[in-house]
């Protein structure tokens, strides 16, 4: 066991050189690399934290926008629903009004139709009634309808003698109105009948196509009439009753 001091000195120098070499090529690069990597990791963490904060902020903005959008959407939906409701109500009201109008118009049209039909029936019924009556009178009694009407009017004048005089007062003319111009013999009979009760009266005959078949006497303030309207009305009532009854009776 001996110490070679030259070797000791050389080993000291070698060791110091080795310290410098390892410091230069091992420790410093490794530690600097580790520090740089840690710094980079820290920087990345900072970036990640910032990115997370930005993401959170963006998320908050997005959620706020989403909430605002949903609110706007709900408002718009509510407004549209309300508008649709109003339009629906308006359309329903319009339809109801139109239906009411059409129903009213249809009812009016039906009434017009019924009135027209009734008038036609009235006219046709009256005409048929008169023709039948006239034919029956001619066939059975060799009489004309106008003559029988004039006779009937004469009877009524006789029956209402007092009343007629009282109502006629001091009248000096009498007007006989008929549906069409009466035959001269009939006019003469009526004139005779009236002048028998009112000797000084002047009898005048007029034709009114608008009037129903019959006679109307107007003398002063009194008026006496006989027309077939009452008969036709009776016939109309009878036919209406028959139609109403017929609708309930089933055919055999």
């Amino acid at each position, binding site marked *: 066991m001996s110490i070679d001091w030259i070797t000791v000195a050389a080993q000291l120098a070698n060791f110091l050189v*080795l310290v410098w070499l390892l410091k230069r090529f091992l420790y410093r690069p490794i530690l600097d690399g580790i520090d740089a990597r840690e710094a980079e990791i820290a920087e990345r963490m900072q970036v990640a934290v910032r990115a997370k904060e930005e993401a959170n902020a963006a998320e908050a903005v997005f959620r706020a926008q989403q909430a605002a959008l949903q609110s706007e959407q709900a408002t718009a939906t509510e407004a549209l629903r309300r508008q649709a409701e109003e339009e629906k109500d308006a359309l329903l009201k319009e339809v109801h009004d139109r239906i009411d109008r059409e129903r009213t118009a249809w009812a009016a049209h039906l009434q017009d139709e019924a009135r027209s039909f009734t008038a036609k029936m009235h006219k046709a019924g009256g005409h048929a009634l008169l023709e039948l009556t006239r034919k029956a009178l001619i066939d059975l009694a060799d009489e004309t309808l106008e003559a029988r009407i004039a006779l009937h009017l004469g009877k009524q004048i006789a029956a209402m003698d007092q009343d007629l005089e009282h109502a006629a007062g001091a009248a000096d003319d009498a007007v006989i109105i008929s549906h069409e111009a009466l035959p001269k013999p009939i006019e003469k009979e009526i004139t005779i009948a009236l002048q028998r009760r009112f000797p000084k009266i002047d009898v005048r005959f007029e034709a009114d196509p608008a009037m129903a078949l019959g006679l109307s006497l107007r003398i002063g303030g009194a008026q006496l009439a006989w027309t077939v309207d009452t008969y036709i009305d009776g016939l109309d009532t009878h036919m209406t009753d028959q139609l109403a009854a017929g609708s309930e009776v089933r055919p055999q």
Partner: protein
Amino acid sequence: MILSPDQMILFVIWGIPINATIFYTWIVMAMLTGVSMLLTRNLRADVPPNRWRTALEVIVQSIQSQIEEIAQGPSRHLLYFAGTLFLFVAVSNLLLVVPGFEPPTSSLSTTTALALSVLVAVPLFGITSRGLGGYLKTYLQPSFIMLPFNIISEASRGISLAIRLYGNIMSGAVIAAILLTVAPFFFPVIMDVLGLLTGMIQAYIFAILATVYISSATKPPHPSTTQKDKS
């Protein structure tokens, strides 16, 4: 029988004889530097480290954590010094298994040189840390009567470091050589394996003790603790 590689003159450069201790020290230095240069070239922070660089980082960080644990604080200069001590001693001792390789640590000259470097480093680190006056005051602690004892303690630290490392490594090599002549196959293998373990332990102890000595000189003495030689 040559017990020390100092006596093995391998070649002469410019009239200077180069013995086995110096030559194999250069080999260890070349290996350490070469591997370091190879693994730390093109080092970039944005490139993930490969497995070799990771292994190197693990070694360096392990040494650094040990030193920081003992020194109770980070110190890069202490890492350079004690880390180099550890790596040099460890690699020298590990190369014991290479046939024909004479570990430089089996030379008392090498261990003396390393112990001297520790002896020099302790006051250097102490003066750097505390200043000249502050460091010299530590020799008077706890009282001036302890001055000679402190001086003897400092000297004995270096001697014990040198003798311990030399004795362990040299004895292992000598025992292996003796056993090689007695039983050429089996026992040398066992002794070499044991020598690997002993060598690593000695490298660790040498570096740890150097760190303890240096850190005790750089930090204020604690009243409840006493410096003891762990060997």
